[in-house]
């Protein structure tokens, strides 16, 4: 510690040798620096506070986003909105800033410069986490008037735009929506008519409530099979009945007496005739309502023919062997069981005829369906495509209509007083320049000067070191040191040394005094500048 102190003292002592040089350097730097400080032009600042509805500005960008934007991005948007290039060009024109800019490149540079110097910040007074939409617009210039003009012109131009209500964007959007709706409406109609036309053309070939083609075909085939089965059943039944009928005779002979047989025989012949009469009457009756081709009529015809043939056979048989069989057949015909079976047979035959007709019809229907087997799927695919097309168009149309309604609502809301831009504090420019802070600069120059002076002295001491004590002597030279002799005649020197010290310190004090003077001068100049600015410039 002691050594360090000694070393520092030695250095100070050594540097002290160059006190005059140090003072000269300090003075030189201070004078030059102070002149430089005075040559820096004053910078004035003007500012205004505005309210900007960031939500309306940010709304379109933030659609569908749940995250709240931070202040920085809000600032960026506001900046973009306020400092657009055309607006700045207008400002430059109105404030005559563009006089100096001759070429387009210079104009571009000027606009860029304006963009940089126009500072938009969140208002300091409300600056918490969010800006609440209040922003401060600041512009600095060496001319107070100019700085004021720039801010004012900028605000004016923005206010104008707001008041004239140029909502280009919204109108554009609505027009677009309307056009789209019209187009979609037409498309929708087209789709509708196409679908109707198609339906008209392909009636019967389209799937209905019974299901599509294949379901129907299958159904028809099942039905056909059923009809076929029914026909087969009916035929089997008729065969059985016929067998029973032919097998009844022996059975009847055994049990019938002659009287009853005769009676029966008579009745039987009479019965056939009566039945023919009956059927004929019935046929007449049917023909009144149906044509001859009606299955029932045809069936009746067939039955009639059979009956007539039967009657003929009966008569023949009676004529040939009246004795042997005539009575028998006579009696047989009059047998009630036999009669019942015959009725049954008739009925079955009629039924069979009906079933056959039905079968034929079903067959023709199936074959018809099978014939169009290649066409139907195509039709169905086309139909579903048309349907889909129609559905899509309709959905879009509805969506557009909804949007248009929303847009109209929004515009209405905007028209009924949702403010997007409002001047809170009109532009104002301070009379005192904001920069340069001359006092600080002057102090800085003073410090720099003193530091440089001290530094030079120290450097010189390092460059030209001297001896301060015997130990240093021994260390540096490596020779035996006999001793030290005090400064003789120190007392006589005292006066001279004191005078010199006084001179040194007075020159130093003079420097500080000069600083004070310069500082006062700078204040006076500032004051004068503010006064003249106040007189000449806008308020």
């Amino acid at each position, binding site marked *: 510690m002691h050594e360090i*102190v*000694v070393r520092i*003292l030695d250095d100070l*002592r*050594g540097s002290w*040798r160059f006190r005059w040089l140090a003072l000269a350097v300090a003075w030189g730097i201070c004078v030059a620096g102070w002149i430089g400080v005075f040559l820096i032009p004053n910078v004035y600042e003007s500012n205004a506070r505005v309210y900007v509805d960031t939500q309306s500005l940010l709304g379109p960008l933030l659609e569908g986003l749940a995250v709240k934007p931070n202040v920085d991005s809000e600032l960026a948007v506001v900046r973009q909105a306020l400092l657009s290039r055309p607006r700045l060009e207008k400002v430059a024109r109105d404030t005559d800033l563009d006089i100096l800019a001759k070429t387009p490149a210079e104009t571009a540079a000027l606009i860029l410069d304006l963009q940089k110097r126009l500072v938009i910040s969140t208002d300091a007074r409300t600056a918490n986490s969010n800006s609440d939409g209040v922003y401060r617009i600041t512009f600095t210039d060496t001319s107070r008037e100019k700085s004021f003009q720039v801010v004012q012109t900028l605000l004016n131009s923005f206010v104008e735009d707001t008041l004239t209500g140029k909502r280009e964007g919204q109108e554009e959007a609505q027009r677009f929506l309307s056009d789209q709706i019209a187009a979609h409406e037409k498309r929708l109609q087209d789709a509708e008519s196409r679908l109707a036309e198609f339906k008209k053309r392909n009636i019967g070939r389209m799937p209905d409530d019974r299901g599509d083609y294949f379901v129907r075909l299958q159904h028809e085939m099942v039905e056909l099979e059923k009809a076929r089965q029914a026909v087969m059943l009916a035929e089997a039944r008729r065969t059985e009945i016929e067998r029973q009928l032919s097998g009844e005779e022996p059975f009847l002979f055994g049990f019938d007496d002659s009287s009853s047989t005769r009676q029966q025989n008579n009745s039987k012949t009479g019965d056939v005739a009566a039945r023919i009469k009956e059927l004929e009457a019935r046929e007449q009756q049917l023909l009144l309502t149906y044509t001859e081709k009606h299955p029932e009529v045809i069936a009746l015809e067939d039955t009639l023919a059979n009956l007539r043939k039967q009657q003929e056979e009966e008569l023949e048989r009676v004529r040939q062997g009246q004795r042997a069989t005539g009575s028998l057949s006579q009696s047989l015909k009059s047998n009630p069981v036999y009669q019942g079976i015959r009725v049954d047979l008739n009925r079955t035959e009629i039924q069979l005829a009906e079933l056959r007709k039905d079968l034929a019809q079903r067959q023709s229907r199936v074959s018809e369906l099978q014939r169009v087997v290649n066409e139907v799927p195509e039709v169905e695919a086309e139909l579903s495509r048309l349907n889909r097309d129609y559905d899509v168009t309709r959905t879009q149309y509805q969506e557009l209509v909804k949007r248009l309604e929303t847009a109209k609502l929004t515009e209405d809301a905007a028209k009924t007083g949702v403010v997007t831009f409002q001047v809170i504090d009109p532009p104002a420019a301070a009379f005192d320049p904001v920069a340069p802070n001359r006092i600080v600069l002057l102090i800085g120059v003073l410090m720099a000067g003193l530091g440089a002076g001290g530094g030079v002295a120290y450097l010189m001491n390092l460059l*030209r*070191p*001297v*001896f*301060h*004590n*015997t130990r240093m*002597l*021994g260390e*540096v*030279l490596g*020779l*035996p*040191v*006999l*001793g*030290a*002799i*005090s*400064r*003789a*005649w*120190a*007392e*006589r020197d005292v006066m001279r040394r004191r005078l010199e010290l006084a001179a040194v310190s007075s020159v130093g004090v003079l420097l500080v005094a000069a600083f004070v003077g310069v500082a006062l001068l700078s204040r006076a100049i500032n004051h004068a500048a503010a006064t003249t600015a106040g007189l000449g410039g806008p308020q």
Partner: protein
Amino acid sequence: MSLVERALQKLQASRPSPAPVSRAPAPATPPAAPLSAPAGRSAVPLLRSPEDLRAGNARLLHVDRERLRGQQMLPALSQEREISDQFRAIKRPLLNGLPAEQDETLSRTIMVASALPGDGKTFTSLNLALSLALEKDLRVLLVDADAPKPHLTRAFERQDVPGLLDALADPSRHIENVILPTDVPRLDFLPIGKWHDTANELLASERMRDVVQRLADMYYPGIVLFDSPPVLLTNESRALATFLGQVVLVVKSGVTPHQAVKEAIATLGDDRRISVVLNNAPLGGVLGHYYGYRYGYGATRGQPAAGAGRRDNNDST
């Protein structure tokens, strides 16, 4: 230094009215012939011993301390004790370092040198000589060998008296005859003599070597001190350094740059016996004791009356 004063007073008291006794010039009395043929250092018979000189020369050189003080050749009265203590401290290692052998007479010749002018050679050599003369058994010769600026000779006002240069230039002149005994006991002074155009060459000549040897022999076991020109500004000091036994280099504190001192040492030759003295050391200060003169300074301060008393004495004489 009060001791010197007292010794001087005693001496003056024991020798009543020395000045008017013999007006005869010293060089006239000795015959020149025996010295003209020097054969070697011990071989040459000394014409006279310093005692003979002193005895034969009634007119002693008066060391006027007031005048010297006025020329700042001696410390101010207030610093007298302090600085005499410092010289005492300096001479002690110097004397202790001297060899005891008879034939090493040359080692008792000391060159007081400095790198640059104004470092305080003359002050140092004079005060060192006075301090050495206080030793009871030590005869001291102070030689002014600074031809360009003979401060010592001027201080004693002996510019017109034949001196070292005359003896060097004229082989017939004996060096003993130009030595001036002073009224300080055991202290003699050799002035530079008349200015000579070839003073530098003379001081660097072989004759100078002989003279140095002769003086060393003559003053053995005393000390011969040479006040020399600045090393870095003159050529002869280097030659002088080769003739002399050792060098005391005076460095002025806070003034002489490191580089100058180093160059001076290189010029004198690394094989020389060189020791250093720091002159002009700063007074007191925060760490005054560090510089080693705190005691002396304090003592001086403690006895302010002593200096005043001496001054009265001096004035009266």
